[in-house]
C-alpha cells in the first residue's frame, strides 16, 4: 500500500462481501419458492425475497465500486485521498441506510413501508430495482455526491491518468442517471421509457466505463505492460461501448407502447453491443500474454481474465441471443431474460469487484500476495462460482426455451402456471447449482482466513 488513506477501501470491500452472502441466501430462497410455491409464505413472500436479492446486489456492487475508487484513485493520482474521514463517514451512512431499508422490506408489508416513508409526497417506489423508499434514494444521492467530491478533489490535486478520468466519468454518469429514478409519471409508457435511462444506461453504458477502468488498473499492476498500450485499449473499448450502447437502449422499446421504428434502431445498435465486450476479452488475453513480469498474486490475474470472458458470454453472447426484435417478440419477459441477467451481472460486475478485491485485499492486509494455500482455496472458489453460474444460466435458458415453446408458440398455448409446472426439472437444476455457488462462496471466504506464509516479493 503506497498511500495510507487507501486503507478505507478495506471497509468497503468487507461490507460488499457480507452483503454478497445475503444476496445469495435470498436467491436460494426464491429458487426454492419456484419449486415449492408456499415455501416461507407468508413470512417472506417472493416479491420481498426478490427485492432483497436484487437490491443487495446493487448495493454491494456500489460498495465494491466505491472501494475500488478509494483504493486506486490515490495510487493513480500519487496523492493521499482528499478526505479519509468523509470516506469513512459516508461508509457508515450508506451501510446504515442500506440495512434499514432491507430491515424495512423484511419486517413490514411494502404498503406500510411506503406509507411510513412518505411515498405519496414523491412517489418513486414499486418499480423493479427501484423499490427503495424515496428517503433511501435521497440518501443514495447524498452519499454519491460526497463520494464524487472526495474522489474528484483527489484527482484534481494529483496526476491525471486515463484510468482515473474514465472511472470518474463512469461514476459521475452513474450518479446522474440515477436521478431519473425520481421521475415517475402516471403515464405508464413514459414511466417505463425513462426507467430504462437508469437501468440500461447503467449496465450497458456508464458502468462499463467503471468496469473498463478497474480492469485496466489491475492489468497494469499484474502484467507490467506499458500504460500507453493499456490506455489506448481502454479508450477504444469504452468508445465503442457508448457508440453502440446508448442508442442500443432501443432494444427495450419494442413492446411498451413506443413507436415501432425502435424495432430497427434497437436491433441494429444493440446487435453491435457485443463488440466492446469482445474487445475487452481480446484485450485481457493480450495483456496477460505480453506480461513483463510474473506478479505473485496469480489468482488476481485469473479473476481479471475471467471477468472479461464471463462478461463476454453473459452480456455479449446471451445478450445477442434475445436482442433482435423478431426474437425478443417471443422471449421478452421469460426465463431467457433471467438467464441473461444472471450471467451478465455476474460476469461483468460481480467478477470485476471480486477481481479488484483479490488484487487489493492482500496489499491492504500488508502483503503483496497471499500464500499458495490461500490462493489455491480462492482459485477453487473462483471455479465453483463460475461453473455454478454457467449451470444456472443454462438451466434458465432451457426453461426459457421451453416456456416460449409451450406458452407462446403453437395453436394451443398453455397458460402461464401450467407452463411453469413443465419447467420443474430446470428449476431443480438451478437450485442445485445455486447451492454449489454458495459452497464456492464459502470457499472464497475461507481463503481470507487461511494462515500461511504471505508472499512478499514483487
Amino acid at each position, binding site marked *: 500500500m503506497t498511500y495510507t488513506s487507501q486503507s478505507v477501501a478495506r471497509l468497503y470491500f468487507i461490507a460488499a462481501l457480507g452483503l454478497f452472502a445475503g444476496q445469495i441466501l435470498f436467491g436460494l430462497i426464491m429458487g426454492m419458492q*419456484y419449486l*415449492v*410455491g*408456499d415455501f416461507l*409464505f*407468508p413470512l417472506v*413472500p*417472493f*416479491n*420481498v425475497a*426478490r*427485492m432483497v436479492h436484487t437490491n443487495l446486489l446493487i448495493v454491494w456492487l456500489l460498495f465494491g465500486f466505491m472501494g475500488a475508487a478509494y483504493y486506486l484513485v490515490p495510487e493513480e493520482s500519487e496523492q493521499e485521498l482528499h478526505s479519509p474521514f468523509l470516506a469513512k463517514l459516508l461508509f457508515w451512512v450508506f451501510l446504515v441506510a442500506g440495512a434499514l431499508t432491507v430491515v424495512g422490506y423484511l419486517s413490514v*408489508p411494502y*404498503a406500510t413501508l411506503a*406509507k411510513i416513508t412518505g*411515498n405519496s409526497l414523491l*412517489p418513486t*417506489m*414499486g*418499480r*423493479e430495482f427501484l*423499490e427503495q423508499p424515496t428517503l433511501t434514494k435521497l440518501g443514495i444521492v447524498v452519499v454519491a455526491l460526497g463520494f464524487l467530491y472526495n474522489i474528484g478533489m483527489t484527482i484534481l490535486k494529483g496526476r491525471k491518468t486515463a484510468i482515473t478520468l474514465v472511472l470518474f466519468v463512469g461514476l459521475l454518469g452513474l450518479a446522474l442517471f440515477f436521478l431519473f429514478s425520481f421521475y415517475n409519471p*402516471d*403515464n*405508464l*409508457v*413514459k414511466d417505463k*421509457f425513462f426507467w430504462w435511462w437508469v437501468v440500461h444506461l447503467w449496465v450497458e453504458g456508464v458502468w462499463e466505463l467503471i468496469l473498463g477502468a478497474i480492469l485496466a488498473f489491475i492489468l497494469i499492476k499484474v502484467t507490467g505492460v506499458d500504460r500507453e498500450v493499456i490506455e*489506448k485499449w481502454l*479508450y*477504444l473499448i*469504452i*468508445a*465503442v461501448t*457508448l*457508440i453502440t450502447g*446508448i*442508442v442500443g437502449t432501443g432494444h*427495450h*422499446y*419494442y*413492446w*411498451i*407502447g*413506443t*413507436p*415501432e421504428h425502435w424495432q430497427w434502431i434497437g436491433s441494429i445498435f444493440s446487435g453491435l453491443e457485443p463488440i466492446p465486450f469482445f474487445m475487452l476479452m481480446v484485450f485481457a488475453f493480450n495483456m496477460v500474454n505480453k506480461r513483463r513480469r510474473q506478479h505473485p498474486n496469480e489468482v488476481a490475474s485469473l479473476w481479471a481474465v475471467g471477468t472479461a470472458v464471463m462478461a463476454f458470454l453473459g452480456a455479449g453472447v446471451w445478450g445477442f441471443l434475445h436482442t433482435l426484435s423478431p426474437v425478443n*417478440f417471443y422471449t*421478452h*419477459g421469460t426465463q431467457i431474460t*433471467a438467464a441473461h441477467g444472471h450471467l451478465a451481472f455476474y460476469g461483468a460486475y460481480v467478477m470485476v469487484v471480486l477481481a479488484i478485491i483479490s488484487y487489493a485485499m492482500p496489499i491492504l492486509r500488508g502483503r503483496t500476495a497471499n500464500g499458495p494455500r490461500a490462493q489455491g482455496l480462492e482459485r477453487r472458489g473462483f471455479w465453483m462460482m463460475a461453473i455454478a453460474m454457467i449451470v444456472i444460466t443454462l438451466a434458465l435458458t432451457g426453461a426459457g426455451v421451453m416456456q416460449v415453446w409451450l*406458452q*407462446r*408458440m403453437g395453436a394451443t*398455448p*398453455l*397458460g*402461464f*402456471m401450467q407452463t*411453469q409446472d413443465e419447467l420443474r426439472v430446470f428449476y431443480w437444476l438451478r437450485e442445485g447449482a445455486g447451492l454449489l455457488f454458495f459452497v464456492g462462496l464459502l470457499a472464497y471466504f475461507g481463503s481470507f482466513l487461511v494462515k500461511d506464509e504471505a508472499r512478499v516479493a514483487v
Partner: protein
Amino acid sequence: MKERFTVGMARNIFYGGGVFFFLVFVGLSFGTVRDLPKRDNSQNLTPQVAMGKKVWEENNCIGCHSLLGEGAYFAPELGNVYLRRGPDFIKSWIQSQPTEVAGRRQMPQFNLSEAELDAVVAFLKYTSGIDTANWPPNIEG
C-alpha cells in the same frame, strides 16, 4: 500503425463518439415523447387510473408479475390480464388471496379497499389499451 494511433486519438473518439450518440439518443427520445399519445392510451388516463398505478406500486405487484413483459417472472403477465380475465375476475381474485393450495405459488392478501380495487382494475384496463405492437404473441402473455 500502433505508433501513429495515439492515446489522444483514442480519447477523442471516446469523448466525441459518446457525446454525439448521446445527443442522437436525446433527439430520438424527444421524437418518441412527442409521438407517444398515438399509442400510449393517455386519453384514458383518468385520476382513477393514476390511483390504480399507485396501488400497483405501493404493493409491489411487479415483484412477482411482469407488466408489458418487464418485472418478475414468477407469476402471470398482467399487461393483458384485463382482456384475458375481465374486471370481475380480477377483483374477486385479489380479494380471495391467498389460495393456500399446498405447494402452489402464493399471492398475498393486500387488504385493499373497494376504491383501491376498482382503481387497480382501471389501471389494468388502461394498460391493456396501450398499443404494444401486438405483443404478447397470444392471450396467455
